């Protein structure tokens, strides 16, 4: 048998060697791996971040857009004017912009896109972004006037989301499988389950990007991700699933490791209406019982920035409030005693699948046990989490990363699953929404952060890191993720 076995092995190996010899690629394309495959390619009708990772700014563009540092800059709109009272935005569109099918992008398309997103039967996952739009008017082919029902200081920011990109009525029917946008890359090919290829758009209205083509590959298994990177099958891993392997890549001169920040505030969400968590002393006790650094070290292998409120640390308006909930188990025990729980109490902790939640949850449960709180861990799938925790509000505690950018407004929604009903928070958000002055907004955002921090609405843990790995020669990758995007227009190979 050994002969036979060796023979079949040898032939398999010979097969390998023959294909290997045809390697060697010119560096004008790139292969980028991401964890999840997009379900389809319409960013305006699903919440899946993988869609934006592939199409945002590559295939589709909006009136405004995010840059890698989180700033909002003009996109298809080259400029705009805001009326005195802050309710009318007049956008001046770039001239000479065409969709990939050759049709011209004009004010009619903008009206179509915004009307479609805010329509009654709209399938937009972020419909709230468009809720304030009262009307969209075409002034001339390159001018469009958007009237809001009330001033919204966030409007230009909202229009930069992937859910607000401009689409063409001519190609809307096939948008899920054959997206037609205005971006620097056109859709090439999709081998479902394996990869998506984008090709440079020679007719792009803006500057021509360096890369001719890009392939996105989908690898969710951490071991497979490690192997693909080490074997150099892929050039970039957008968000690497195995933080424990990063030191190995850091030590390898073939690779660069890009540790940045995302918009994901990882928190210990607390049901503020459910006893005993309706007592602020109990919530404060939770906050002091938690040792953030131990969670970051244990669950994230040291990657992640501690936060003391629901706000991204890389944002200029961020206030460091971690001091409000410093690790102090004695204080926690005393607060519990004051609230009438000398003996502690029993509660539950729902954990969705991501490793930050499952690993982090175990550590939190152990830390809570130190102060006498017994948290029973319940592992749930995403769909179950959405159903029972998020929609049903049937939970005590859960660990989750809130990845939407600038989502502090959720604290002004008493029906949100935290069930935090504070008139102060609601008034503050109303004032904020009506304010357009940047300095004033920054101050109000600071107030809001302080309010939820000292109300101990949730346990604030850490900002979810973006752990990128790339071959040493790749330039222009986003370090941070102000939104889910892999902006190909900025990427190039160094000589």
């Amino acid at each position, binding site marked *: *048998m050994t*002969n036979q076995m060796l023979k079949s092995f040898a032939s*398999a190996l010979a097969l390998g060697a023959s294909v290997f010899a045809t390697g060697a690629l010119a560096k004008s394309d790139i292969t980028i791996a991401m964890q999840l495959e997009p379900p*389809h390619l319409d960013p305006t009708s699903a919440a*899946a971040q993988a869609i934006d990772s592939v199409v945002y700014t590559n295939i589709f563009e909006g009136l405004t857009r995010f840059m890698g540092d989180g700033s909002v800059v003009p996109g298809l709109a080259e400029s705009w004017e805001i009326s005195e009272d802050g309710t009318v935005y007049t956008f001046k569109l770039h001239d000479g912009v065409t969709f990939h099918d050759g049709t011209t992008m004009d004010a009619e398309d903008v009206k179509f896109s915004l009307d479609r997103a805010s329509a*009654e039967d709209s399938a937009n996952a972020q419909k709230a972004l468009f809720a304030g739009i009262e009307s969209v008017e075409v002034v001339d082919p390159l001018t469009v006037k958007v009237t809001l029902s009330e001033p919204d200081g966030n409007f230009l920011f909202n229009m930069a989301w992937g859910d607000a990109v401009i689409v063409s009525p001519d190609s809307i029917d096939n948008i899920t499988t054959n997206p037609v946008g205005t971006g620097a890359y056109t859709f090439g090919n999709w081998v479902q*389950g394996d990869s998506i290829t984008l090709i440079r758009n020679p007719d792009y209205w803006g500057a021509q990007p360096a890369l001719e083509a890009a392939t996105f590959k989908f690898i969710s298994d951490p071991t497979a991700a490690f192997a*693909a990177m080490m074997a150099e099958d892929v050039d970039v891993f957008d968000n690497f699933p195995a933080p424990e392997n990063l030191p190995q890549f850091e030590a390898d001169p073939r690779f660069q490791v890009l540790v940045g920040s995302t918009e994901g505030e990882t928190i210990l969400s607390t049901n503020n209406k459910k006893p005993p968590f309706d007592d602020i002393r109990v919530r404060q006790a939770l906050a002091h019982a938690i040792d953030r650094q131990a969670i970051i070290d244990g669950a994230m292998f040291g990657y992640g920035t501690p936060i003391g409120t629901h706000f991204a640390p890389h944002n200029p308006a961020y206030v460091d409030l971690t001091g409000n909930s410093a690790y102090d188990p004695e204080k926690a025990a005393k607060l519990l005693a004051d609230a009438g729980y000398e003996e502690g109490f029993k509660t539950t902790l729902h954990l969705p699948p991501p490793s930050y939640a499952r690993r982090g949850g175990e550590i939190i449960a152990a830390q809570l046990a130190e102060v006498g709180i017994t948290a029973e861990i319940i592992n749930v799938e995403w*769909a179950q989490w*959405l159903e029972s925790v998020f929609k049903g509000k049937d939970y005590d505690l859960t660990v989750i990363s809130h990845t939407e950018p600038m989502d502090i407004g959720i604290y002004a929604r008493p029906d949100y699953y935290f069930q935090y009903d504070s008139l102060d928070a609601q008034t503050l958000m109303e004032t904020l929404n009506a304010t357009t002055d940047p300095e004033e907004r920054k101050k109000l955002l600071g107030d809001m952060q302080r309010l939820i921090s000292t109300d101990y609405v949730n346990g604030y843990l850490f900002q979810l890191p973006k752990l990128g790995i790339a071959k040493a020669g790749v330039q222009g990758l986003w370090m941070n993720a102000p939104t889910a995007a892999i902006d190909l227009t900025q990427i190039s190979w160094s000589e």
Partner: protein
Amino acid sequence: MLRYALKRLISLLISLAVASVVIFAVIEVAPGDPASFMLGVNAQEDTLAALRAELGLDVSKAQRYFNWVGGMLVGDFGTSYTYRTPVSQMIADRLWVSLPLALYALTLSTLIAFPAGIYAAARRGKPGDLTVMGATQLGIAVPNFWFAMMLVLIFAINLRWFNAGGFAGWDQGLWTGLHSLTLPAIALALPQAAILARVMRSSLLDILGEDFMRTARAKGLSRRQALWRHGVRNALIPVLTIIGLQFSFLLAGSIIIEQVFYLPGLGRLVFQAISARDLIVVESVVMLLVFAVITVNFLVDLAYAAVDPRLRSRT
């Protein structure tokens, strides 16, 4: 014979009907709304309702069951909730990976197992037999995903002879396709080969003790000639049964290997669909696999009956 075939056919149809009810019930009973999974945490109630209507989720469970079964009867497996493409097309695409992979692995496993089993049987109790049996014991004990990782480590990361995973598609050429399936096929094949080699050996040993083998030797054939001319052929029947079982196992059961090598096969499709609550895809793929197994059994039953008339009268 016709009556027998008719009876088997009726029992096949009943099995399929029962299977469809069980599959539907089990998958639908798990909590989780596909629409809210797709639209995420910021979705508004009216958006969710619109999507549910679009997906056909707003009707009663019974109605949905009949829509699903009715569609399948005319070859329409429905449209995937998340991918928004016809399920039948997705299954067809994935079969182009899973089917060749299963066949490739089965071929490798047979090529390894036959010589190994025959060699071991011919040298029963000698060091050669013990070595092969030891190796097969190891082959059964080692989990195939671990073995897959070792293959990747050696042949993809260190030697760079293969890609660590992925499948470029058959349109890149037959060699490229086979090349990217080689490591997964080896990982899948070895544990199967170990089982098959043991079956081959024991089946052959049974035959070697039969009277007709003694007769063959008495007629003057050497041990080797008797083994090849009369032994192997008769030992094949149980071996072929095992190969048949292994094929359906390889087709349906390569989920983990497809995950390790990130291959776009049926197993990974089901895996993704389950976590995304893409119920229609899960239901349809599972139903298809059940259909394949039941149909193969049906054909095997008919084949047995054709060979062995006693079976016909017994049923």
